[in-house]
């Protein structure tokens, strides 16, 4: 379909996630329409597009929160479309939520312990889960807040819980839903470092992001969605020059000829 990246080491790359002609309707609205793309192992791919483009819906389809109306999702060569979320999680897909959803009555540490206990295959002991969760909390910068209630934490810290919780399942594929919007430039810098470090450890990352600095800085490839359809795909530098992308974000240039797009 659309130009597959033909790098020198393309043969060494393995497709981890393959999304084929995915479609999801909500009533009469096509939230995702015939979208296909793939993500290779250890790749960082960004999913961008204006509000309502269907980015989070795609995340919900991959993680099993929604079932697709048609199309297939293959993870590591195996179809996961239609599996329930906990099954997909245990196959190695971790995700964060755009709207932070920590368990409010648990402490920060307990939040992360929960996913370490249940998201891992094979299961690990309570002690191992507690140790690992504490390490992860320190890694994302929550080391001094283990015993706190998530309710008392700032937005960036709540995002850190989301990330730690997603990492605790040892994901092969990590879905990050706008984890960097609303962060200060310093915090964004730290988050970028974290993402790059995760990739070094072998994690593949698919992220939804609005912060262009992040998208341009770390993505190997960018996929652009608009009204539920994929309109462009490629390296970041090429995508930003794509007239279709510019049109989606800014609208078509009004050039006389009765073109009334605003």
């Amino acid at each position, binding site marked *: 379909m659309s130009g597959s990246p033909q790098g020198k080491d393309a043969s060494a790359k393995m497709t981890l996630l393959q999304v084929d002609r995915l479609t999801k309707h909500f009533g009469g609205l096509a939230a995702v329409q015939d979208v296909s793309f793939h993500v290779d192992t250890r790749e960082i791919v960004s999913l961008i597009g204006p509000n309502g483009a269907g980015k989070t819906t795609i995340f919900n389809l991959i*993680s*099993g*929160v929604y079932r697709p109306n048609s199309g297939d999702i293959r993870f590591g060569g195996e179809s996961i479309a239609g599996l*329930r*979320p*906990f099954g997909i*999680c*245990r196959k190695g897909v971790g*995700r964060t*939520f755009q709207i932070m*959803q920590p*368990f*409010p*009555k*648990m402490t920060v540490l*307990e939040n992360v*312990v*929960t*996913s370490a*206990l*249940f*998201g*891992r295959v094979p299961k690990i002991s*309570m002690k191992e*889960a507690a140790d690992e969760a504490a390490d992860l909390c320190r890694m994302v910068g929550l080391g001094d807040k283990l015993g706190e209630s998530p309710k008392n934490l700032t937005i960036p810290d709540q995002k850190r819980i989301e990330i730690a*919780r997603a990492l605790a*399942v040892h994901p092969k594929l990590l879905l990050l839903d706008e984890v960097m919007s609303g962060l200060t430039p310093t915090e964004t810098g730290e988050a970028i470092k974290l993402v790059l470090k995760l990739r070094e450890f072998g994690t593949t990352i698919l992220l939804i992001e609005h912060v262009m600095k992040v998208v341009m800085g770390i993505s190997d490839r960018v996929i652009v969605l608009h009204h539920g359809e994929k309109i462009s795909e490629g390296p970041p530098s090429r995508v930003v020059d794509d007239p279709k992308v510019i049109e989606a974000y800014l609208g078509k240039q009004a050039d006389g000829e009765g073109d009334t797009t605003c």
Partner: protein
Amino acid sequence: MGSSIRWKTTLPLAILCACLLLFPKLVGSYFLHMAVSAILAMILASSWDILARTGQVSVGQAGLFGIGAYSSALLYQKYALPPVLGMLASALIATVVSIFLGYLTLRLRGIYFSITTIAFAEALTVIWLMTPDVTGGAMGVSTPPLFGGDREKAYYLILAILAAVVAVVRLIEQSRLNFAFTAIRENEDVANVLGINPTKYKVLAFMISAFFTGFAGGFYSHYNTYIIPYEVFNLGISIACLVMPIFGGLYTIAGPIIGTVLIKAIEEYLRVTFSYGHQIAYGLILVLVVLFMPEGLLGLWRGKILPLLRSRPGR
């Protein structure tokens, strides 16, 4: 420091256990009967609370209780199964029923699950009345008094069951189940995405809850010597199961027990002073607690009273 804290909790607990064990020697038959019925209610309340930990509000515990009561009474009547074995059979039968009911209904959430459980208990009443040949119908089933009417033995048996419930709840609290139950209660969708199978753990909680509720039912039928469908499947039992933990404090070991003691005391007092008064009291307590102290008596104690006590001697 650690050992002093341990002493602080184990000493009162040891005294409490000793009091409970010596209780039958100290009081007369009336208070012993009161204690048995209170402990029975504590078992029901604590069992209800186990399922509530997963966020599911069952209003059909009477269904499981009635199944338990009838199982052991009918097994005794038809096969002369010894009462204690009958109670065990009751527990197992109620558990099996909960598995079917659970897989059918626990995919529903919140109010929908609650409504289904009400329907379940009410439907059982109707089924029982329609099949008098098997179930005894409206005439009920009677059994000889438990242990030949020895209330002291009955007391120790029901106390042992309560101890088992408390032990199981304690085990749950210290195991990974606690994380699964709490996560599902707080946000089922997120729990699911983090690898927790919500239906599985909700059914498991329901099974544990049903086991003890069924056992309590079996005990009740032998202790009471006579059961009828209107009584053991009564909505009142289901309501009592949830009022007591809500009053005492949800998702705790002590909450359902303390709630039961107080409600039973109020109920007994009102029963003597004006009839049906306890039903009004149930309603009032439920409304007041939900509005003004959502964490129950234990929450009030931890949040308001304990800090007051602590601040006085210090500074």
